[in-house]
């Protein structure tokens, strides 16, 4: 199956009604879907879905507004936004087998 591009998701959502949306039971994936849901909500934004933030990366050529998927915010060697200090270290479980992603 092809990747779930915005276009594919938009089509699926449209077919299932105005208030249909895309969700995930995995919190990590669901958070990454947040911006995608925002774009899907307003079909008028689809044409500009991948062009950047619309300001300093603004494209003036109508036929290429939607071709980019990369919007670098920080250079890779400082690419990590400083983490908010938590009260204690989180200890996620390291991978141990093959079924953890089910």
């Amino acid at each position, binding site marked *: 199956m*092809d*990747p779930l591009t915005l276009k*594919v998701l938009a089509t699926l959502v449209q077919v299932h009604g105005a208030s249909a949306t895309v969700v995930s039971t995995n919190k990590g994936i669901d958070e990454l879907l947040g911006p995608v849901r925002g774009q899907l909500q307003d079909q008028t934004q689809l044409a500009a879905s991948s062009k950047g933030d619309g300001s300093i990366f603004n494209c003036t050529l109508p036929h290429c507004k939607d071709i980019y*998927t990369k919007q670098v915010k920080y250079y890779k060697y400082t*690419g990590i*936004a400083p983490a*908010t200090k938590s009260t204690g270290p989180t200890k*996620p479980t390291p991978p141990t087998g093959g079924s*953890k992603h089910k």
Partner: protein
Amino acid sequence: MSAADASPVRHGAQDPTADETVKFNPPGVVWNLVVKVAARCNIDCSYCYWFRDPSVYDAPKLMSERVADQLLVRVKEQITRYSPPEFYMVLHGGEPLLWGRTNFQSFADKCRRVADETGCPVRLGTTTNGVLIDERWLDCFQENDIGVTVSIDGPAHVHDVHRKTFAGGPTHALVERGIRLLESRDIPFGVLAVCNPAFAAKDYLEYFSSIGATEFDILLPDSNHDDRRQSIGQFYRDLFDFWLAANQKERTIRIRSVEAMLSGLIGGRSESEAFGYGSEELCTILTDGSIEPLDVLRIAGASSTRTACNVFDNALQDIVDDAGWKAARRASLDLCEKCRNCKYMMACGGGYLPHRFSKENGYNNPSVYCDDLYSIFEHMQAVVQKNIYISTPDGENLSVSDAMKISGSAAAAPAEPQSRLNR
């Protein structure tokens, strides 16, 4: 079966750039600089891209006050002319802390002045090996709101393989000491590692967990087609599995490379320059004031990033008209045929530009990690398909495959990239 036969190419697809009406976006405004305040380092990492280019030794060891002041003249000029919402500078090296606290403090003071005069926030960050961090550096970071990222390759037995002192000794304990100091003041910091696929992703993850790092990245080792490279596919597939399991019920961990790849797969955007289709527009300022494109491109060879621009003779925006900078940008967008026909083109973007280089073809190659990246995307895609649902107005969660069956051919939209590039 040959490697070519196994390649992820959709045969028979139309070449998207054959249509001459397809143009690339014009360059954006320069608002993000990597500032090389030190051209030397105090440790000797075997994989460092910077010292692969002997011309870096021709540059002054440290940025002079004259160059730094002239850079800020150009920054202020850039802000005044283009009004970006913010201006961001990463103080980088070599090892940037070799520039000294006095220089950091003075530069930060002057940046505040530029921000006050223009109304545009001027943000500073630095990426350090952490060895020189002490209490006075902590004061400097805190007083000037300088974002800190520490390079550490996980636990000592991994880190010390490549990150050594000039005498060949280990550096892990020195770096960890710096991290403990940052933690002692509750100073938030980022963590960056480089993947060593000879070790398990689990080794890195357990270590980062032990130091309380819940946001980090593990970068692909810098390599091009003229180098020997190791397969990184299994490492990143494991990394993704870990990320997925850790974030199942609660958002507990962020791994930038994983999220950049995944975002591209689900219709979102990558915030990493290493993944996703888009232009490479980062600029580097050298210690002598030269303005260059992405500094990692120097793994293509000596002086390969040299341009005719510098902060004394040129505005920052002049770089977008430099032939060398334009060539790098063009290369980032003008993908090779294999990439253009790959179903993961938009999510992958051809990989990281420096990783495409070969002496024979320049950048007209897929990433040196193409096969690995493809296997990672395949793995992610298979998992994502099972974890995404269409939530209908009547409260039903339909799997993507069920939703597609219901929507029939209407959902079978043409796959990227052809559908976008040929519009």
